[in-house]
């Protein structure tokens, strides 16, 4: 499996741009609009798709109902929608249940990287770790303490 290397901010930025084009836009045209290579926006498109914010057919990116709801609401309520969506991502669900079953609901970064490495075939697992933590922090689900080098469940 691969995981999209895009931050939540980039993904929402993408939704905003597609929204300006009337809710549907050709990926190549969108990239050209920003003077970017298609490669540079693909991770954001993949991320948006994984979170259920767009559907992609034949290079056309179309906003889903959830994306429209997200864009219409304020920063506070966006957080809630993001939380629900991120919580539903397979690899994050697995991490969450691992944390629930672990002692003190904490897992070392080392162990987390090993788990991720088994799922994501990459030489650069660190940057995937950073992205996943970016998502789970936005969602208020999983945090990371860089002093103790442990991930932990964020209590509500």
């Amino acid at each position, binding site marked *: 499996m691969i995981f999209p290397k895009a931050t939540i901010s980039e993904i929402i930025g*993408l939704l905003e741009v597609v929204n*300006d084009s009337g809710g549907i836009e050709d990926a190549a045209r969108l990239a050209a609009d920003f003077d970017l290579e298609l490669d540079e926006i693909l991770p954001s498109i993949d991320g948006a798709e994984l979170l259920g914010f767009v559907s992609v057919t034949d290079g056309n990116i179309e906003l889903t109902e959830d994306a429209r709801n997200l864009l219409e609401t304020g920063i506070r309520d966006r957080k809630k929608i993001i939380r629900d969506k991120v919580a539903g991502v397979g690899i994050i669900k697995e991490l969450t249940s691992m944390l629930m079953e672990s002692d003190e609901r904490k897992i070392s970064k080392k162990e987390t990287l090993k788990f991720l490495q088994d799922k994501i075939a990459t030489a650069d697992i660190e940057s995937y770790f950073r992205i996943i933590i970016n998502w789970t*922090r*936005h969602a208020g689900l999983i*945090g990371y303490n860089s002093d103790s080098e442990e991930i932990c469940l964020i209590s509500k």
Partner: protein
Amino acid sequence: MLAEIKNISKTFESDGNKIQVLDNINFTVEDNDFICIVGPSGCGKSTLLRIIVGLEKPTSGEVLFKGEVIAPDNPKVAMVFQNFALFPWLTVKENIELVLESKKYGEEAEKVACKYIRAVGLDGFERVYPRELSGGMKQRVGFARELAVEPVLLCMDEPFSSLDALTSQNLKDELLMLWAEVSMPPDAVIMVTHNVEEAVYMANRIIILSPRPGKIVADLKIELERPRNRKDPEFYRWVDKVYSLIV
């Protein structure tokens, strides 16, 4: 009237050479103004902003804030820089609490910090160190930190220029959402940018400067409804108009 920029000129002297950077700049800032200052590179935009917040002295002229000459430590005026510094050894929350230190203590500082952390969508990142943050999240800390002092006038120098295109889009929209909230500071914004589309997207007033020495060539009211759409032909007419005025 919030602020008055009166007959501002600025000449720098380096190695015995005099360079005039600003030439007799005059305008007033009203409540609810979202002013973007645009102009060619090197025309003195950053210098003008630094003079407005009192960080730099003009060679002649003066800046009045609510009728008084501006002082650099005026708590009602805040500035967000393009590459502002966060303290690397402090967490997000501590970085924000730090600016409140002189005015608010303990629980109250914490309350205010939390309010603005939530306002900019940084909750979940409170205990994170700057090195772990993406550019977009860092810039959010910058906004939260300046908003936390609850300024009346917020000045920003190219706050989006070091971000990637999508992140910057997201931050612009969120900043406008905050701006639309009446209960949120500030009362007026002055933002410097070299990006004309960005100016038309954000501003209700655009001030265009000439090449150095910067003079005001136009002061335009942007009469576009919000939320604005970059694909709207009307939007493009404004962009073209601003471009045509920049030499």
